[in-house]
């Protein structure tokens, strides 16, 4: 769908253009018609004047009273001509000199070629005088009027074009200005996606305010639900795991026989299953407004904490201290916690963790100097990560959890051998919105 801006501008442009074209055309025409009518009415007056100047008392020939003829008809080639035909006698204006006016079929003719090749407007009218027909033809040079009308029309067109352009500019500005709140909201939605804001705060025009409010409400609802479900899951975990811990204690106290081994195995299965399902349910995934503001501080604390648990292993973080990541903090801590703890379990002395921002997201590499695994096992470890119930201890559960979180974030995970530390290297890329 075309943008609102485009649609508004195009339709306004079209309506403006239509209006100005119609206006110019109508006014131009009207001016032509008006000036012609003006001319015709004057010429008709002149005709009547000529009729009054015509003196005819048979048997003498008809003559024109020269005093009553407008002087413009006396000047040669003045552009004003007449020709009177009465009883086979032709009288014509002095201005015609030796020329004659052409015959006329109707009452009015435009563009008659007259003397000196000028365009004439010619009127012909018949009167009856003493039982005889008097035909008075009167003509006037219209080239002057034509040129003034044309220049007027030109000016009109120029003005209309200029006015239209100006109005278009004004309209473009008006459209842009009135769509500004929409632009602000769009920007905020982008920020929301990146996790820079928690809700839309820009004041919106009343037409879209309900939409903004709805979005804000949904966001709040989502965050509340996540919090509530996480809390409930925590309680569930607590309620399930404490009895499991007791059961484990009791079973371990029994003297070793086959049943005890079986029971311990089953307990372990249950533990793994619960752990994985809880992580799956707890993962928020990519949610608007989710931001991990201080990854460096959190990871630094985590590394310090893991150092207490694995005192012989040196964990080094390679990351930008000021970076922030548009993802849920708890999800990411879960991801990094499992990754680094796993690496620590297998490393002999060193673990490196690289985090770097990329164009479309960020990438993570966690490498250790442990034994690593052979290439053939990469795939099975990744697949086993997806099938929790069959995986064994060690890398298994941690990987299952990591795998679960990454799949929720549409990320990618590959395994390789570390170039620097020669143990296992886990490569993860997560895409940011």
């Amino acid at each position: 769908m075309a943008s609102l801006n485009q649609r508004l501008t195009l339709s306004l442009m079209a309506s403006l253009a239509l209006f100005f074209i119609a206006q110019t055309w109508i006014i131009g025409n009207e001016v032509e018609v008006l000036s012609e009518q003006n001319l015709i009415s004057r010429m008709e007056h002149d005709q009547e004047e000529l009729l009054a100047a015509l003196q005819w008392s048979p048997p003498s020939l008809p003559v024109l009273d020269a005093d009553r003829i407008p002087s413009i008809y006396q000047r040669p080639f003045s552009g004003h001509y007449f020709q009177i035909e009465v009883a086979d006698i032709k009288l014509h204006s002095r201005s015609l000199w030796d020329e004659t006016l052409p015959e006329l079929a109707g009452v009015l003719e435009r563009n008659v070629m007259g003397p000196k090749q000028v365009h004439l407007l010619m009127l012909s009218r018949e009167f009856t005088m003493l039982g005889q027909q008097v035909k008075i033809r009167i003509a006037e040079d219209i080239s002057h009027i034509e040129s003034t009308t044309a220049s007027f029309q030109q000016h009109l067109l120029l003005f209309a074009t200029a006015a239209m352009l100006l109005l278009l500019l004004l309209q473009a500005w008006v459209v842009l200005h009135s769509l500004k709140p929409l632009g602000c909201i769009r920007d905020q939605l982008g920020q929301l996606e990146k996790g820079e804001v928690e809700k839309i705060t820009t004041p919106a025009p009343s037409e879209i305010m309900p939409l903004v409010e709805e979005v804000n409400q949904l966001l709040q609802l989502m965050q509340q639900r996540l919090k509530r479900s996480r809390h409930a899951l925590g309680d569930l975990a607590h309620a399930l795991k404490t009895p499991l811990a007791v059961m484990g204690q009791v079973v371990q106290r029994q003297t070793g026989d086959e049943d005890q081994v079986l029971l311990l195995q089953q307990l372990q299965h249950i533990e793994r299953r619960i752990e994985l399902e809880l992580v799956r349910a707890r993962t928020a995934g990519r949610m608007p407004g989710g931001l991990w503001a201080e990854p460096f501080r959190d990871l630094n604390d985590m590394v310090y904490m893991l150092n207490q648990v694995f005192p012989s292993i040196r964990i080094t973080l390679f990351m930008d201290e000021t970076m922030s990541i548009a993802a849920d903090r708890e999800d990411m801590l879960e991801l990094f916690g499992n990754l680094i703890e796993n690496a620590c379990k297998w490393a002999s002395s060193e673990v490196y963790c690289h985090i770097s921002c990329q164009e479309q997201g960020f990438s993570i590499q966690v490498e250790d100097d442990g034994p690593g695994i052979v290439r053939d096992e990469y795939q099975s470890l990744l697949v086993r990560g997806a099938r929790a119930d069959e995986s064994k201890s060690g890398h298994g559960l941690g990987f299952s959890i990591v795998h679960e979180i990454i799949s929720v974030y549409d990320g990618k995970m590959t395994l390789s051998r570390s170039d620097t530390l020669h143990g296992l290297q886990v490569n993860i890329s997560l895409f940011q919105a």
Partner: protein
Amino acid sequence: MRLLLIEDDTDLCTELTNDLRLRGYAVDASTQGVDGCFMGESEPYDIVILDLGLPDLPGLQILQQWRAQGINTPVLVLTARGAWHEKVEGFRAGADDYLSKPFHMEELCVRLQALIRRSSGSGKAAIEVGHLRLDEDRQVASWTDSVSDVSNIELTGIEFRLLRYMMLHPERIFTATHLIEHVYDFNDEKESNVIEVYISRLRKKLGKAVICTRRSQGYYLDPGALHKD
């Protein structure tokens, strides 16, 4: 080693208490956060196991309260939620180690031993002073030099607790009352001369010079006596 266990589940609490007592800890247990918090403030514990999911008072709050009061007893946090953000927050509140439920008893013990050794300033994997080594799992002492003919020295429960405490803090002088506080739990029957009795028994097993008496002050372990040539 005096240990405080704060765990709201009665069954797990009883299980852990019994097991830890067998492993040579003087255990005081509380199933209430408020009581546990008070005990931690009033008794000189060497280590605390704290469950974060207490119904009456959140474990993190107890921890913050202690740290704010300057109580620096090492704390191992037990969490059922097992979420990493909780572990990180636990560390920020001042926890020294964490363990997710359900856990193996062996793992808990390894973590406790490591934590105790770390807090006494020893980075070694086992408790060793001079030629004397203490095996915490088997609760026996042994001489590491080949000259000695007696390799394993059997210890009773209280003897083990007493020797471990003194070996973790060599050269420091402890009064009999102090030793009682760190070797017996709150409910144990304590007689006034009980420490004297156990000290003399240890002297019989290890040699007279190992534990010295400083008149009107108390007892101390002399590392010089353990560096036999």
